[in-house]
Structure formats: C-alpha cells, structure tokens
C-alpha cells in the first residue's frame, strides 16, 4: 500500500465547466503509470466523491502517463453548498488514496 500522491508527479483537479470536475493524475513515467492503471479502481474515485461510479468517465492515457477521471461536480460550481469555486482542492483527497 502507498499513498497515491507520493507515487505520482502530481494530482490536479479543476472545473470542466460549472457542472463537471476533472482530475488528472500525472504519473511521471511508464512504471508508475502501469501501477496506477492496475491498482487504482474507479470505485475508489467514486468513494472519494460519494459519487455513483457509473457517472465517472475514466481515461488511461499511456502517451502522457496520465490517468484522468471526470465526473459531475459533487456540488454545482458556486451553488449555495459549494466549497471550492475552482475545484482545485479536491485533488488532495485523490492524492491521499491508498493504492
């Protein structure tokens, strides 16, 4: 077991418009990329966001050594209950996942 954020170069999250959130995991090299692709389950991402894993789009991108997830924003951007206008903080929760 290892914390995802310590294995990879960077975990980034950002709005993809007001209704979607996208999370990019930059693995840095092919070896780490293979491990992340193999061990990081989409259901783990669903658990982080209390989301339905069926709504999560996953892109494994070997050319960039990037694993990307996009999902409907946990709270619509700027809605009354929203806590992060630009959606960048959520990367921390993904980086703290154990794989």
């Amino acid at each position: 077991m290892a914390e995802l954020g310590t294995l990879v170069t960077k975990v980034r999250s950002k709005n993809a418009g007001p209704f979607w959130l996208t999370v990019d995991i930059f693995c840095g090299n092919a070896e780490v990329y293979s491990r992340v692709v193999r061990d990081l389950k989409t259901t783990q991402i669903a658990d982080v966001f209390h989301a339905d894993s069926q709504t999560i789009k996953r892109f494994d991108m070997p050319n960039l050594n990037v694993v990307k997830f996009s999902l409907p924003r946990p709270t619509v951007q700027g809605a009354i209950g929203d806590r992060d206008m630009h959606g960048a903080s959520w990367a921390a929760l993904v980086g703290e996942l154990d794989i």
Partner: protein
Amino acid sequence: MTRVLIPSGALGLNYDPEALARGLAAKPDIIAIDGGSTDSGPSYLGRGVSKYARASTKLEWAGLMAARAKAGVPLVIGTAGTCGTDSAVDWMLDITREIASEHGTTLKVAVLRSSQDPDRIAQSFEAGEITPLPGAPEVSTTDIRACANIVALAGIEQIAAAIETGADIIIAGRTTDTAIIAALPLMQGCHAGGAWHGAKIGECGALCATNPQSGVILIDFDTTGFTVTPLADGAHASPHTVSAHMLYENSDPFILHEPGGHLDVTAASYTALNDTSVRVEGSKWVPSDRYTVKLEGARPAGARTVVMALLRDPRYVANAAAWADDIVTKCTAKVLDRMNICAEDFRLEIRLMGQSASFGALETRTGDPVEIGVIGIITAPSEAQAAEIGKLLNPYLLHHPLTQEEEQPTFAFLFSPPEMHQGIVYEFTLHHVLHLENPMDAFRLEVIDIG
C-alpha cells in the same frame, strides 16, 4: 498560412510586452485574446460584470490596441468582461472609446452581442429547441425566466461575420474560448481539425508551454495542421506540454464540442520542431447535423450574509464540530421563532476552517489544529432577512458555551460589525444547447465608428 498572435489566456492576466513585440515582428494576421470564462463562478454572469479591475483591463487593452495599430491587423476579444453579457460588452466598448479618445484614434469596431432574452429562451425550451448536456440540472421555464442573464456561446460563424465587416477591433460577447482563434484560419481555408485543435491549445495562452505565466504565444495554421511557439524568454513548448494541455479543464481529453460539430484529437501527432515549437497534425473536425450553441444562465439564489469568528481555546478547538452543530440547531429555532420566515426559505450553515471547511462530509482526515476559523453562512430570500439572521447568529458565535455549567466564553470577532453582506448571490442554471437554423439567429452584430 494564417498566423494568430495570442497575448495571454485572458485580458486582465497581464502579458509580457517584450514577447508581444516579438509576436508583432513576426507579422501576425490577427491578434486574439479571451476575456473570460465561467471559472470564477456565477456571480459575474448573474450581475453581468467583469471580475478584473477596470484599471488593469484598460492598461492591457490600450497596449493591445497599440499593437494592433502597429501590425495593421484585426484585434478580437471574446467573452468580453468575464461573462460576455451585453452589459460586459458595453463596458469593454466604453473602455475602448476612452482609450481611442485619449489617443485621438479613429477606429471601426464590430460588436457581437450574445445576451438572450429569458422569455424567448423559455419559449424555445417549451418548443423543444433546447437540449440538456450531460450533467445538466433539471430546469423549468420558471427557472429560465428567473435568470438575471443568459448568454449563448458564439462559434466561428459569428466571429467570421464580425471579421468580414473589416473592423479594426472586434468586441464579442460570450463565445467559445476557441472560436476567436479558429475563425480566421478557417475563413482562410486552413485544416479544420488543426484550426480547432490549435485554438484549444492556444486559448489559455502559454499554459501549453513550460513557462505558463509568460502569456504570449504564436500559432501558425496551414492546410495540414498547426505549429505553436511560445514567445517569452525561456518558454518552451514540447510535445508533452502541448498534448497535456488537452487535459486541462476538459472532461474529455480527446473530444471538444463546438457549435456545428466536434473536434477529435485521438489521432493527433505532436512533433518537436526544435526546443521551442511543436508541430501538430492529424486532428479531425467532425461536422454535426444540427447547428447548436451552448447556453449559460445565472439566476438569483438569495442574499448572503457571512459571519466569521475564531476559536483558540483548546477545549473549544477540540469540540468545535459539536459546538457548531449546537449553534445551528439553536439559532435555526430562534430564527423560526422570532422571524416571519419558513425553514425552507433560508439556509444557515457553519463551516470550520482548519477542520472540514474544504470538503465537509467528504473529508477523510482529522488533525489537531491550533485554532479554528468559524464561518457562519446565511442565505435568505432578501438582503434584509439575511442581515437579520446574521444578527441572530452573532451572539452565538461570540458567547455560545459547550455546557450550561461553565462561565460564559467569548470568542474572537475579526471586525465590527462581524457580519459581511454579499448581497444577491447567483447560481448557474443552464447547461444546455440551443438549436439554431441560422448561426446569427441568436446574435446581433453592429459596426461602430469611433473618433
């Protein structure tokens, strides 16, 4: 070949004047800059205002107007004034007039307006001309009519119409980020996939390069693809930095939907020409059967008052969550008892900075903070009601004890008064597309002579 000079990712973010001069020396065919996005939240669209300071906007715009005059090519801004409403376009036009007047310049300005009448959009919704995109909220015609502002995102067709007027400057309301960059290359017969892909790579300025703060980039579009070159000292583009930019703020890194079709970069190839420039080919433009434009709308969500306090007493820091829950329960009861308001008409929430303010129920970690920032957030139908609830919350945040037995505590207020009034706040309402028979149907183009 069409050469597009992009000074930065947005007007108001500043640009490197030396790099801009280098770009002018390369003789661009057009200078294109974005003026906004939804990224700063619904308030700007709701109020129809810019997030950037007028002083910064004027200074940077004056620099670009001078660059345009020197190059003798059109200057285009898309999504003027952050949100691209007609009011934001007028604000930008006013700044343009002021600069022209100060310099004694004569100008032909094309103004493209993107604001929509909520009543007409509601009618189009009833007529089935509006389709939700994935992740769209449920909306009714009442929700649509409640919008303070609705804009449609123009594509290349509307920008091309503005360029065809022969204007020196084009001030466009809401457009897609890419349209202002892709329009001229497409008008001049460049590769369609390359034009849209290059525009997407360039829309954030030098964010596609190694020195993202440097701003200025140059893109050469031709009949097989495009070449991107950052212009600041020490800025480099590599196949990795350019291809990785398709990840940024995109829910799908291969597909980008635009008015009239979509871009597919699955088969794109990225080649380093040297340590600065990257060549991209193989991107594909796929036209759609129906011409649609995306809609954005913001409607009032109530008035907000915020009250802040600080907990530093270790016992209160350790028990902050229970303390805050108790306050919300007791204060809510007091609001219902003393004010003429229903429970469903207001929202009272306390967030604890240092503990769970970032993620609320999604937080997985616990810690032992030195202090906790308490943010009381009230949303109510009117500003007066939000302010009144703030005053009811005030004594709790100042003195609420953990137990009845202890001496009354006093916490730190940062200000007098501690209540901060945000006025009316907004929420995004639409994530839909509107079908148009003719691309200009939802837009108005006007040519204005200045000076």
